[in-house]
């Protein structure tokens, strides 16, 4: 049985993950979720870890960024020691960046699906994950102009 880390945030990111989960065969998968709000992964797992968002939706300060970065680094290190993940799957937001980078350095598969709300611009997370992910999917064809090596997936 493979152990997979699903990373996603509240709101639209969670809505996309719910739809994605319905498309996947997860019978032989041990699901662990890394999220930015408690209980949003209850629809498919009880193994949930809550990280802190690196970017506030309303304002950002360097201090809050560094403090949350440090908290997340420790949490992810604990996750890496406790579990033997084969794959990371994320629908964003930026909370996936550090763990994805770390897991990629450890030779794991990293699957990222760029948000369905982008048509003509890149998300900050997408810009970074394009280089980190082993498999980078876009839901809107127009994004293939911006991400030429991306895989078009259709829309969730």
């Amino acid at each position, binding site marked *: 049985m*493979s152990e*997979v880390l699903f990373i996603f945030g*509240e*709101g*639209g990111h*969670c*809505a*996309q993950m719910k*739809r*994605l989960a319905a*498309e*996947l*065969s*997860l019978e*032989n*998968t041990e699901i662990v979720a890394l999220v930015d709000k408690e209980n949003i992964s209850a629809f498919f797992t009880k193994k949930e870890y809550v990280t802190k968002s690196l*970017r*506030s*939706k*309303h*304002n*950002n300060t360097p201090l809050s960024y560094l403090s949350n970065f440090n908290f997340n680094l420790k949490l992810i290190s604990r996750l890496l020691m406790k579990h033997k993940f*084969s*794959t990371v*799957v994320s629908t964003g937001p930026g909370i996936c960046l550090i763990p994805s980078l770390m897991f990629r350095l450890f030779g794991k*598969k990293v*699957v990222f699906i760029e*948000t*369905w*709300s*982008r*048509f*003509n*611009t890149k*998300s*900050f997370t997408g810009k970074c994950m394009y280089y980190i992910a082993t*498999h980078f*999917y876009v*839901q809107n064809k127009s994004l293939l102009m911006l991400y030429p090596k991306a*895989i078009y*997936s*259709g*829309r*969730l």
Partner: protein
Amino acid sequence: MKILVTVGTTSFDTLIQFLDEFKSSYQFEFIFQIADGEYIPKNYEYFRFDEELWGNYNDVFVITHCGAGSLYYLLENNIKFIGVPNLERVDQHQTDIAEFLRSNDLSSVCLTFEELGQELSVKKNSSATYRPYKKESFFKGNEISHLINSI
């Protein structure tokens, strides 16, 4: 006319305040979903979150932020709405999907409150129709399942 105003998970105080104080010759009855907003409506009902939002308000006209989760649900269920991108956010990504709605003639979109006021003023007599939403559904489920299950 009963109108649900929803902002999703991120507050959009200026929209809520604008509509709470909106004066019109036509009688609107707003119901506000305000998330963690600081502005508390004075003239109409409000609540912060409702997990069963669409189940509880499936027969009303909607004014919504341009979060994709809300927009796609409304489009897929043929619920009429006006989209207003939340430009109070640090990231301005809602303008991207707002442009998609507008250029594909899928819904009314108001980029400013002035536009929203004008749209509401003609709402009573509006017979505007929009194109049905069609999408190419997600088809990479098997591929990603294979990735996940192959060690």
